[in-house]
């Protein structure tokens, strides 16, 4: 499970590697944290670490999209943004295709990079996470490779316009003033302008960049488009964008736990999002991912150790107190009531 750095405790084991601002691998998977490591993580500006507290009991999921591929994509976006769009389009395509390849292999798509990166890298990492989610949704919607490349490229670049928004507004911890918000809204247009510089970028990809904040009910920006006027690709990117944003800790608000994010996307179907597309994306989301600590309706606490795709709300759980394994699939009188919060996880780890 992902824990903010301040909740980390010595003795916890890293479930995923930690990457620095300059995309260097700081700590590998399986490293046992010490007090020293934790303090240096704070120094490096790392916000969250993916750790496991029950390393003996289950193997952390290793089925994540290759870090190399993801970091490669992150640096590509950075290069593009910093260099003003001089990147070879073919290079973007190949990078997106390497992500498509990973997804087709059936890799986990919801474990996001955003949580594991520092503030400065947030925008780029967010772009890659959204790109991954969008492509995975596109695969479920039976898009062919060409369409997936268009969708992936568009969603990989969807937030490039943010580079023109002042950092002061972008990273402001308080609520934005209406003027600031207007400026913030302009990032879609900025991005669209920037994308024109990328030779060969398809019209549909550019449309994603321009319309990724448009909402199905017309409440979005910049143009307030409605319903079918927004392309499906932009709609996919929009849902993925929202999901990734709300499940990430930001300076101005805490991340929502996966099951709450799931509920929220579900509730927004046909209001903010086209229902079909929201439902497709929900198929990718696991409200209680493997490794998360949950409370059950009988008051016991447990760790999710296995998950069937079709029964995402009824995983296999190891009860912490009794060490017994319960398959919720067969226990109809038992349901998950919620995820443990960070303090409770920390308390558990201390025991």
């Amino acid at each position: 499970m992902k824990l903010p750095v301040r909740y980390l405790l010595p003795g916890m084991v890293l479930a995923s590697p930690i990457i620095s601002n300059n995309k260097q691998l700081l700590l590998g998977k399986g490293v046992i944290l010490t007090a020293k490591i934790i303090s240096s993580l704070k120094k490096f500006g790392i916000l969250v670490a993916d750790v496991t507290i029950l390393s003996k009991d289950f193997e952390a999921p290793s089925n994540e999209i290759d870090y190399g591929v993801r970091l490669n994509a992150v640096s590509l976006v950075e290069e593009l943004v910093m260099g003003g769009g001089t990147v070879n389009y073919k290079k973007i395509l190949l990078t997106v295709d390497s992500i498509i390849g990973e997804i087709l292999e059936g890799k986990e798509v919801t474990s996001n990079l955003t949580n594991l990166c520092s503030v400065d890298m947030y925008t780029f990492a967010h772009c890659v996470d959204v790109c991954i989610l969008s492509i995975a949704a596109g695969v479920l919607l039976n898009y062919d490779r060409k369409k997936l490349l268009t969708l992936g490229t568009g969603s990989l670049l969807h937030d490039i316009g943010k580079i023109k928004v002042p950092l002061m507004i972008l990273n402001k911890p308080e609520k934005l003033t209406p003027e600031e918000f207007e400026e913030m809204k302009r990032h879609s247009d900025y991005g669209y302008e920037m994308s024109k510089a990328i030779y060969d970028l398809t019209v549909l990809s550019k449309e994603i960049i321009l319309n990724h904040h448009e909402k199905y009910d017309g409440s979005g920006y910049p143009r307030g488009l409605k319903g079918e006027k927004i392309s499906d690709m932009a709609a996919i990117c929009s849902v993925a964008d929202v999901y990734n944003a709300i499940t990430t800790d930001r300076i101005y608000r805490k991340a929502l736990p996966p099951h709450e994010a799931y509920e929220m996307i579900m509730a927004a179907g046909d209001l903010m999002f086209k229902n079909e597309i929201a439902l497709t994306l929900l198929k990718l989301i696991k409200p209680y991912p493997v490794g998360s600590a949950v409370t059950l309706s009988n008051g016991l606490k447990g760790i999710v150790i296995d998950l069937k795709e079709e029964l995402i709300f009824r995983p296999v759980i190891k009860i912490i107190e009794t060490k017994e394994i319960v398959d919720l699939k067969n226990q109809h009188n038992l349901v998950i009531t919620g995820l443990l919060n960070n303090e409770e996880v920390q308390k558990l780890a201390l025991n």
Partner: protein
Amino acid sequence: MVIIPSVRKRLFFTVSALIMGLLILFVFQSMNNYATQKDILERIEERRLKINQIAKAVELSERIFSDGKASQIQIRELEQITQQLLPVMHTLEGKILVQNLSGSIENVKNGGDLTKLVTNCKELSAFQQRRLGNDLWLLETEIISRGFKNLITSIIITVILGVAVAWGLHRLAREYLLTKVILQGTTNGILVGNEKGRVAVSNDAFCNLLGGCKKKNMVGIPLAEAGEPGRLLALAIQGNHFMVGQEVCFLGPNNNEICLLMDTIPWKDERGKILGGMAVVRDYTEQWTEKQKVSAENIDLREKAERDSMTGLYNYRAFIEHMQQRAFYQSQGHFALLMVDLDNFKIYNDALGHLAGDRLLGELANIMMDAVRDDDMVARYGGDEFVIVLQGANLNKAIDIGERLRLSIANHPFPSQECLPGGKVTVSIGISVYPENSSNVEELIRCADAALYQAKRVSRNRLEYYRPAICTGKELSEIVNS
């Protein structure tokens, strides 16, 4: 459908013609008899009248003579008699005698000789007596001649009728005989059923073709009891089916196989009423046996041509043909195509030799045959690639079966499998499903191929199903470079 006037109708015509003829004859005879009788009675009456009149005249004349004088009344009576007699006298002599009499009456009236009157009367009477004798003879002759004429006419009519009836009967008889001759002369078995589903006619050849009948005369028994052809004929009559050259095979009484070619012809009359039907059967056993032999040989040949000699599975050609047939009958519903490829077969071949490689393929083929149902198809696509067509399987079912197959191969203790990377023989599987992925055979194979490529690319020992997102390296470079 054959429309025939019924035999019954013809018989009815003949019989009614006969009755009509007899009736006409009877009426004619009675009319004739009546006319003759009337004629003769009239004549007898006339003669009786004449004799009466003449006797009266004689009596009157004798009284006048004996009285010696004639009274006015007597004379008038005599005149009346002569007047009555004159028109009924047919002979010249008779007429003269009557005129003589009337002349003598005139004489008497004028006071002439009475004896003359008496003589005349007597003469007339004598003449009449003579005439009566003649007349009787004439009447006799007349009666005889009339009777004779009647007889002749009757004979003529009877003869004509008889000829007509005989001709009709002859026609019937000839038809009947012809039918008999045809029935017994032909080597074809003939069975005729009536509308009640019973046998109306059958011939010996039919019995012989059936391999013998329980009853020699089958007329009247239900058609269903007249062997397999009888049963079919009953059905054909009920359903009004016209069949030609139907092959009918069944077991004979000695448990030998009998095959017949059978035509069934239902009959209807002009108004569409079913009268029954006819079955014509001919022996076909020899040709059938021959044909069976030939087709068995053909099947055998085809089987050989369709099989891969090394593994005994269907070969590429048979697979393609099978797929094209499926594409032709598009209503066949779901099926899934599994493309199975042996991982690292080249290494195995190079390390252990081609013979070992061939044995491995054979063993693999057996495992695959065991993993699928009877109506599924397993074929060798080429080299170390196999295809499986799963009848009626959707994607989930295909993944299920494919995954089971993959595991059972991975867990099978193949000989010398340690030489392979990973230490075991594994396969990669690509799946495409009809009609979701494509309803085109080539496209479907391409889809399975692309899925297989994806599986190989990822990790081997893996199952992958087709999604449009999947494409081969070549296709990708085409997309990226375009």
